[in-house]
């Protein structure tokens, strides 16, 4: 995880929110997640389609069954009605209508004799006015159809359902029709098991056709509240708040229809149950897909991770690190390419190491030579000077009175020359030391360091009154000893070149420029012409005569050497007679320090 983390953290801008989270996830987590998501979507669509299809086919299956049951019940009802009608007609045919009425009626079962003109000739059993009304309607239809008998429409009376059966005698002379009121008996008694089996869960209703109205009676049950007028064939209706699939069949020889119905919810329930039964399968499918994707993701990311770790290892110096190639195909190709690259890096690096080692050796040799050279300079070059100076002095002291003024002057010049050369040697040694000495960076209090240098300057030349401003709290990551040399030179120069000023002023401060601390030493002294600024840091180059300001011309070269070794920069800004400002930085970064520490 660390390997990924550190790669991820490499300067890439972090995206917030869900997108950012997703981007940060490793492939082996993304892949199964994406797969599972895909399978879930596909599964959901599939299940929905399945549900619709099942619901549709279940619906048509139910419709077929409704039709079958309806037709069968209608046939049974027609048969039952026709048997009774047949009996009535046979009686009417054999005895004539009036006698038949007398024969078939009793007090509890109203019966009516109608004339051919459809007038009530005789009524028995006390039929109600409404029922008589129904009878006349039925009779009119019978007459129009010219049929010998008919089963009339349903009607309710005192909570029970009745209908008329009418039969004609077929004899044109005899008075018209005999009608008997019958009760619709739908309760289960006497109903055969065959019918029970036939209708099953289907609800069977008996009603009048079309918009004739009248009651709806449930087979095996009471009257129910009628819904919309039944139309023949497959249909739907809402009865008592429930949605039904229905089939309406006319009953032949009767003004009846058989309505078969099944609640819509039964169909939906069946489809839903089927769809539900697929859910465990779907979940299994999704898990299997996700798991498979996880395995595939692992297979892809494992070599990637191995390579990432190897790359990190190589990056941190383990150049011999390779990845083992087991896979073929793309991953194998990648691994082989990686190994080739690693080998190249190792070769290059070894070559580079070798070159650095050789260069370092050479450099060390040169350094060694330089060191013995400066040692010799330090030791051997000064001895003769000491002799020149010492014996000139001895001459002056011991033989002074015997020498004339010119001779004495010459001797003094001899001593002056020797002493100046001594200073030159000292400065040159300092320069070479600054170039060789390792840069040891620490946290340096530049303000305190400047105060030290200034105290030294004041001690060496107590006669001078120079106003010196040093900014508080200046620090630098630098070599303390070398910074001392820099300040000694820059403040020393400012001190020296303000010596002809009536009101000498020196300022040492620092400013931040884009995160880099720029130090400056400013004075109001002699300054210099910027046209010669390029000669400032060249050894032995001086912009002032030795009679105006004494110096060796090595100080600024030393400063530049120190600053360069710190990876910094030094530059100047000045005008002749208007003072000078020297700027420098030491924030060159760690690299410069590391390279230098080799010497």
């Amino acid at each position, binding site marked *: 995880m660390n390997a990924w983390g550190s790669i991820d953290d490499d300067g890439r801008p972090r995206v917030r929110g869900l997108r950012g989270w997703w981007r940060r996830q490793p492939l082996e987590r993304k892949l199964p997640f994406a797969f599972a998501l895909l399978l879930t979507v596909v599964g959901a669509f599939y299940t929905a389609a399945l549900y619709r299809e099942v619901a549709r086919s279940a619906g048509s299956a139910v419709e077929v069954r409704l039709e079958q049951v309806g037709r069968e019940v209608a046939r049974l009802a027609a048969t039952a009605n026709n048997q009774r009608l047949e009996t009535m007609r046979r009686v009417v045919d054999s005895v004539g209508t009036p006698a038949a009425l007398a024969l078939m009626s009793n007090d509890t079962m109203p019966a009516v004799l109608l004339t051919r003109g459809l007038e009530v000739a005789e009524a028995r059993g006390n039929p109600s006015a409404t029922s008589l009304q129904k009878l006349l309607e039925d009779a009119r239809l019978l007459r129009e159809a010219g049929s010998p008998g008919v089963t009339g429409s349903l009607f309710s009376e005192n909570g029970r359902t009745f209908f008329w059966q009418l039969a004609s005698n077929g004899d044109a002379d005899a008075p018209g029709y005999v009608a008997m009121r019958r009760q619709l008996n739908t309760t289960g008694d006497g109903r055969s098991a065959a019918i029970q089996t036939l209708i099953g869960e289907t609800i069977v209703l008996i009603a009048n056709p079309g918009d004739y109205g009248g009651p709806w009676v449930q087979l095996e049950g009471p009257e129910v509240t009628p819904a919309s007028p039944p139309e023949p064939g497959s249909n739907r209706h809402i009865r008592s708040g429930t949605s039904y699939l229905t089939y309406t069949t006319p009953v032949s020889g009767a003004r009846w229809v058989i309505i078969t119905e099944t609640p819509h919810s039964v169909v939906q329930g069946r489809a839903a149950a089927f769809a539900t039964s697929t859910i465990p399968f779907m979940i299994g499918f999704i898990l299997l897909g996700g798991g498979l994707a996880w395995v595939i993701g692992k297979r892809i990311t494992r070599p990637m991770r191995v390579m990432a770790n190897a790359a990190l290892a190589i990056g941190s110096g383990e150049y011999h690190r390779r990845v083992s190639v087991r896979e073929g195909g793309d991953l194998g190709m990648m691994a082989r390419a990686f190994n080739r690259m690693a080998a190249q890096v190792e070769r290059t690096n070894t070559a580079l190491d070798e070159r650095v080692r050789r260069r370092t050796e050479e450099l060390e040799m040169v350094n060694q030579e330089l060191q013995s050279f*400066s*040692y010799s300079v*330090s*030791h*051997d070059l*000064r*001895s*003769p*000077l*000491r*002799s020149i*100076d*010492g*014996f*000139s*002095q*001895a001459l002056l002291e011991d033989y002074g009175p015997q020498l004339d003024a010119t001779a004495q002057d010459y001797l003094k010049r001899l*001593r002056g020359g*020797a*002493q100046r*050369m*001594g200073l030159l040697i*000292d400065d040159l*040694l300092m320069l070479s*030391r600054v170039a060789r000495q390792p840069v040891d960076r620490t946290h340096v209090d530049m303000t305190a360091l400047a105060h030290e240098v200034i105290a030294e300057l004041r001690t060496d030349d107590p006669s001078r009154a120079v106003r010196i401003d040093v900014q508080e709290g200046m620090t630098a990551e630098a070599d303390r000893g070398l910074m001392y040399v820099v300040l000694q030179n820059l403040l020393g120069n400012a001190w020296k070149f303000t010596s002809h000023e009536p009101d000498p002023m020196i300022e040492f401060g620092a400013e931040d420029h884009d995160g880099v601390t720029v130090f400056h030493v400013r004075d109001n002294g002699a300054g210099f012409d910027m046209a010669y600024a390029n000669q400032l840091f060249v050894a032995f180059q001086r912009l002032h005569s030795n009679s105006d300001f004494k110096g060796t011309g090595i100080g600024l070269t030393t400063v530049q050497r120190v600053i360069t070794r710190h990876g910094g920069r030094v530059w100047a800004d000045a005008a002749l007679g208007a003072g000078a400002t020297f700027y420098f930085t030491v924030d060159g970064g760690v690299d410069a320090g590391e390279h230098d520490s080799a010497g």
Partner: protein
Amino acid sequence: MPANTILLVEDNPDDEVLALRALTQNKIANQVDVARDGVEALEYLFGADGNPENALPQVVLLDLKLPRVDGLEVLRRIRADERTRLLPVVVLTSSSEEQDLVESYSLGANSYIIKPVDFTQFSEAVGRLGMYWLVLNRTPSRSRP
């Protein structure tokens, strides 16, 4: 009974003359014995056959760059020997190399003085060291067996 001699170890005759002159100028009248290289200095202190002819000097003024055996080696032998372990040794050299300074002190030099080019300054330095090591400084008294 320590003799009040000064042992000056110096190979450069000019420097020797100048050092003697500076001592004289500073009115240091002690006897000055001169050894012209490291071997001579060691023979003076320990004798060629292990029996030195002279008593130990009061102070050794030691140059570092010497023929045959160099000054640092002389200093090392002085400090290694029980008899001369506490002998004051002032390194008097032209070398301003930090390395020489550090090594001298770590070998047990009592002082490290860089010979200035300017004779006036040199004379002053010699005067001061003579005043300190010959007059002011007290060393544990020891006599030769």
